[in-house]
């Protein structure tokens, strides 16, 4: 079992009377890659800044390996930050940028040179030591920023949307590279992003945030397959939410639910249920099975949109009652020409046991936050 490295307890922060973080608790484990995921304004960057020491909490404590850091200035915290826009010193060469932190520690010249070169080699920039930041591409500047932060051998690396300024392809490369670095260095990474795909593919654990509160903390698989609430369900990945009505709770820890008139039996969820209660049945697009109109199972509807995605065929199906269903199907080796016509009648079903139940929430998710993937 991994040990807690950084412990945030009861943290609160307000700006101009507006609450940004509200008594937040989070334990970050030693050596893990944890991502703070959420839409802009959810408090994830503020949280990172509190860890770095750029902001001070209005309440609560920050403890690193049993040492209280709450009021320690950033220069005395054993953490380093990779900034969103890299924040390289424009008047210094790449070498001097990376050496800056070691010079502040007053390390001997020889040691500084060795460690800077080692750090630059790690990000494959050893030949660029004499360049100025403005002579480098965005991706190279990003690597310098990473080298500058890890050269101090911090206990923890804080990354504030470090890839958001890069184009898609470079971003994928840097994602892989960051994972490799984290494995090699064995440092704890705290990664802030609004990109759920990035969060799922890189993290050991994801903390989904909204309105200054952590909505769910779990592995990428837990967050995706078993979202704690409607916000997480909708924010992480594409989602079909079907209205369900509890027919009856069975003795064998199962429950029978009416979905579009279909009677399905699910494992009992971990929230209290009573008969006749309505709830949400969550199905990811890849859980959906599109059947021919003659099939005996499923709900009837028709295809209103089809998108060829290379490896999958994504379609939008309107059920007869108007409900919109997103489906994502892999191409079948036996049927390479597999496709839909618009308006084609189909029946929609799903793989039994892949659905996830969520209770109805008091305030309907009207103000849901749409975020680009």
């Amino acid at each position, binding site marked *: 079992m991994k040990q807690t490295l950084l412990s945030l307890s009861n943290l609160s922060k307000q700006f101009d009377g507006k609450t940004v973080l509200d008594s937040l608790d989070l334990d970050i484990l030693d050596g893990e890659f944890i991502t703070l995921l959420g839409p802009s304004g959810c408090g994830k960057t503020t949280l990172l800044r509190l860890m*770095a*020491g*750029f902001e001070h909490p209005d309440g609560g404590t920050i403890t690193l390996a049993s040492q209280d850091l709450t009021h320690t*200035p*950033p*220069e*005395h915290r054993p*953490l*380093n*930050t990779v*900034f*969103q*826009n890299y*924040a*390289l*010193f*424009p*008047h210094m060469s790449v070498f001097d940028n990376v050496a*800056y*932190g070691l010079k*502040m*520690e007053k390390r001997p010249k020889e040691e500084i040179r060795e460690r800077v070169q080692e750090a630059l080699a790690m990000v494959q920039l050893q030949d660029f030591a004499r360049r*100025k*930041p*403005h*002579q480098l591409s965005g991706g190279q500047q990003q690597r310098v920023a990473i080298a*500058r*932060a890890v050269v*101090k051998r911090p206990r923890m690396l804080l990354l504030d949307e470090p890839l958001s300024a890069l184009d898609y392809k470079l971003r994928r490369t840097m994602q892989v590279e960051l994972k490799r670095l984290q494995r090699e260095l064995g440092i704890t990474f705290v990664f802030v992003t609004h990109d759920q795909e990035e969060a799922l593919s890189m993290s050991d654990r994801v903390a989904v945030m909204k309105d200054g509160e952590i909505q769910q903390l779990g592995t990428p698989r837990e967050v995706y397959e078993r979202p704690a609430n409607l916000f997480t369900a909708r924010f992480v990945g594409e989602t079909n939410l079907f209205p369900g009505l509890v027919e009856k709770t069975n003795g064998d820890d199962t429950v029978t639910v009416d979905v579009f008139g279909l009677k399905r039996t699910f494992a009992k969820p971990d929230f209290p249920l009573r008969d006749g209660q309505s709830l949400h049945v969550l199905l990811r697009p890849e859980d959906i099975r599109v059947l021919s109109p003659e099939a005996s199972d499923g709900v009837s509807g028709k295809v209103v949109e089809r998108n060829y995605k290379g490896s999958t065929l994504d379609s939008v199906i309107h059920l007869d009652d108007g409900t919109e269903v997103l489906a994502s199907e892999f191409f079948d080796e036996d049927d390479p020409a597999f496709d839909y016509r618009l308006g084609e009648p189909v029946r929609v079903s799903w793989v039994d046991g892949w659905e996830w139940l969520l209770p109805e929430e008091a305030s309907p998710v009207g103000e849901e936050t749409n975020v680009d993937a």
Partner: protein
Amino acid sequence: MRSALQQPFKTAVLVLVWGWLLFLVFTPNLLVVGASVMTRDPGSFISLPITLDAYRQLLNPLYLDVFLHSLYMASMTTLVCLVIGYPFAWALSKVPRQRQVLLIFLLIVPFWTNSLVRTYALKLMLATNGLLNNALMSLGLIEEPLKLLYSEGAVIIGLVYLLLPFMILPLYSVFEDLREDLLRASHDLGAGHFATFVHVIVPLTLPGVLAGVMLVLLPAMGLFFVPDILGGSRNLLVGNVIKNQFLDARNWPFGAAASIVLTLTMAFLMFAHRLSKRRIGEEGA
């Protein structure tokens, strides 16, 4: 067709710009250079033969003294402007946007009054029986009036008063461009406030410092009416020398040579300014 319409306009603009530079900048300067290497002539101001006498005359200890004293007063002015202007500009860049606009406006308001008039106003304030002395005496801080006027100090006060905005404005602009995340990065990497100031803030604001120095130091050596009004006979600026040579002594070559030396000083400072900007990568790669 498009180019036919655009061409005359483009030509007109270019002619205007080049004409302006040629007749109002290049030619007068060339005339000054020309005059500086001619011989003094009581009748027609200048005449042949060509000689470097005027420059040789500048090396005369008397004028060297005036030049050095002038440089000293201008340097003190610049230093005082920098010491006041640097923190002022820094603070200015930190206040909320709306108040910034108001403060810059207040900084510029004095320009609406002629600087000669403002210098006379300053004279009234510094006079033996003036506002400052009366205020200090009624506060009981001094027994008898201080002799402020007609001193080196009075000239420097006058120059600082007139030139301070020229120091503050370029500094304000570099502080505006100073990115908060660079300061955060410096702290993050273990630098305290002093180290951050020395290693990050100073180098990044250096172009503004040099621009401010350029805009204060050189005019400070030339504003001849300030010593005329506040300085008495012993606190002359190079500007007074130039003015006297042209208007009183009628020695145009010498006045021109003194003026060239000032121009060269300015050129050197501009060169240094360019170098400092290139260092932080604002120009060319």
